[in-house]
């Protein structure tokens, strides 16, 4: 499953790029918000995500067939009638994929919201209050972090027999908040030590005001990134649960399609169309969400921003690359002495080697 690796750095205080959130000035933040949309990754990811949300809303209304309806076209490859082919019962795979978008997006976003709310509450409280509260809450999130979430989810869902999408979203949300809580705690800790927060505390500003007006605005990017990460995780979890056949049989999602494809030996029959579309749907959704997250990472930590143009033209027509340790020199006017020899006695052995 997806590892929220892009935020590894955020978890380890003092190490990562995110150790010091750099969007501190509100005026600047406003200008940067539009810059964020200029980021190609963000734009691309948001457009794809928008399409998915659109299909989640209108999908069930525009399916060419009833996704459950059987027909006589059994296990047909893609055709003009059935864009993604048909199942062993003659059901239209395209309609199933379309119809299945809504539960996936619904569970993803709901679980993401639940986990984000939990992580904000737990992470910020721990980071801000410190002391015993912090120890307890940190221990709690660490426990949830190392207990393998998917097996836990599988078992709980299986016990709860025919769990509805709502219930599944709840289970996923309740088991996947810990990573973000940890990130937020580290961020809150480092923000709390900032001068302006210390000042507000010293002047006796109410805690909820400091958290609401000073901390949260500065944590927006981190919270957003955590939310997106959880949505990815929730989508994959739902698909997983559906694929092993322990969610409610009523309604479609991409996981159920794969479940039937696997159960009916789609592979052995060579019916690739039965499982490829659903898998690609998952992969593109995941990619879109990851791209948004990369953009957020780059937004928060400018060091990660792609360097843009890194090849430069020098005055003499050559090209040089921008890299750390060797600043490019675009033009230097060579005079006769430039090409002069260095006296060997005045050099270290390596220098002697280099000028040979």
């Amino acid at each position, binding site marked *: 499953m997806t590892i929220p690796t892009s935020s590894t750095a955020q978890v380890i205080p003092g190490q990562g790029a995110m150790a010091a959130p750099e969007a501190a000035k509100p005026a600047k933040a406003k200008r940067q918000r539009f810059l964020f949309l200029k980021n190609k990754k963000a734009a691309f990811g948001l457009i794809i995500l928008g399409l998915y949300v659109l299909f989640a809303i209108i999908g069930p209304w525009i399916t060419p067939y009833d996704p459950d309806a059987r027909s006589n076209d059994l296990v047909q490859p893609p055709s003009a009638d059935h864009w993604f082919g048909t199942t062993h019962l003659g059901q239209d795979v395209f309609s199933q994929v379309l119809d299945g978008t809504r539960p996936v997006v619904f569970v993803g976003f709901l679980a993401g919201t639940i986990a984000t709310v939990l992580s904000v509450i737990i992470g910020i409280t721990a980071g801000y209050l410190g002391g015993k509260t912090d120890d307890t809450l940190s221990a709690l999130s660490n426990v949830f972090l190392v207990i393998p979430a*998917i097996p836990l989810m599988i078992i709980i869902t299986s016990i709860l027999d025919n769990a509805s999408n709502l219930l599944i979203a709840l289970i996923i949300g309740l088991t996947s908040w810990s990573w973000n809580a940890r990130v937020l705690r580290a961020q809150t800790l480092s923000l709390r030590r900032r001068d302006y927060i210390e000042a507000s505390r010293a002047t006796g500003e109410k805690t909820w005001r400091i958290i609401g007006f000073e901390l949260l605005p500065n944590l927006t990017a981190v919270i957003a990134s955590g939310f997106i990460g959880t949505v990815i995780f929730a989508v994959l979890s739902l698909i997983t649960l559906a694929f092993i056949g322990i969610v409610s049989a009523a309604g479609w999602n991409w996981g159920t399609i794969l479940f039937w494809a696997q159960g009916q030996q789609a592979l052995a029959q060579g019916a690739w169309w039965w499982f490829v579309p659903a898998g690609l749907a998952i992969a593109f959704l995941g990619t879109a969400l990851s791209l948004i997250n990369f953009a957020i990472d780059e937004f928060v930590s400018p060091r990660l921003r792609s360097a843009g143009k890194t090849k430069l033209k020098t005055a003499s027509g050559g090209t040089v690359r921008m*890299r750390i340790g060797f600043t490019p020199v675009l033009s230097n006017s060579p005079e006769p002495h430039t090409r002069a020899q260095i006296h060997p006695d005045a050099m270290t052995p390596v220098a002697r080697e280099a000028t040979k």
Partner: protein
Amino acid sequence: MKYFLQRIAFYLFTAWAAITLNFFIPRLVPGDPVQSLIAKFRGQLSTEAINSLYVLFGLDDNKGLWAQYVDYWKQLFQGDLGLSFTFFPSPVADIIGDALPWTVLLVGITTVISFLIGTGLGVFAGWRRGSWTDGLLPVTTFFSSVPYFWLGIIAIYLLTGPDSFFPSSGGFDSSLVPAWDQYFIPSALQHSLLPALTILISSVSGWILSMRNMMVTVSSEDYITVAHAKGLSERRVAVSYAARNALLPNISGFALSLGFIVGGTLLVEIVFSYPGLGFILLQALGAKDYPLMQGIFLVITISVLVANLLADLAYLLLDPRTRKEG
């Protein structure tokens, strides 16, 4: 040392939490699962077995919750995880004992290899940032977004078949008997190649990406500029200064992500009918075999904890700041 003891204490605490959670799980089961089981095995169950099931499911009305909890721990210390419904009357501990080595070898080795390869490539991509390596990022992102099991299905579809070198399912040739001999081991290896490759491909990109980002971040630290200013070779700066520091957070990340990874790999076992924990978990799910599910969850959790502890140890060895002062 203090750091290490703290970690140990934490893992003990987590193990306790997981076991306690495990104790409560069967108590969430609606209805009377034992009754339905007795019905299923009409007359084959001894009174003793039935009693033990009642203890396990907390349906033993004669005892309070606390007494049940104590009993549960006692059973656990005797290695008694109950009896499996699916493979009745085999004890859960035996079934898990048979499956565990498969999972540990497949998932364990593959995950470590994936981490090593990903980290290595990440060092390269991060160091040569702005070059063609950046173009690989979208591809790796795509692969990390694909569910492990789906990639497994595709691999089976594309790479297995009657004439293929890769078997499509199982952990070894069914004509062989498991043994450490020259017939069995190659067959087991052959069967594990495709599942391993699947896990590798879907997990490696995550490591590439995180290591690359850490490299980029570390590369702008002062000590990297100093290393360049000292005139050290490119290789030494990249490896001994940049990568060496970037590795530390990545190891923490590795430890923290294990819980996530394991979930995905279980599914790969299912797709490949690989005789590990994931595969028997699927069977347990189908048969509503609660003791087996519980046992599997417990064992997976403990394994992840142990792996975490090992990662912590590695971190301890690599970061002088966590070592004892002096």
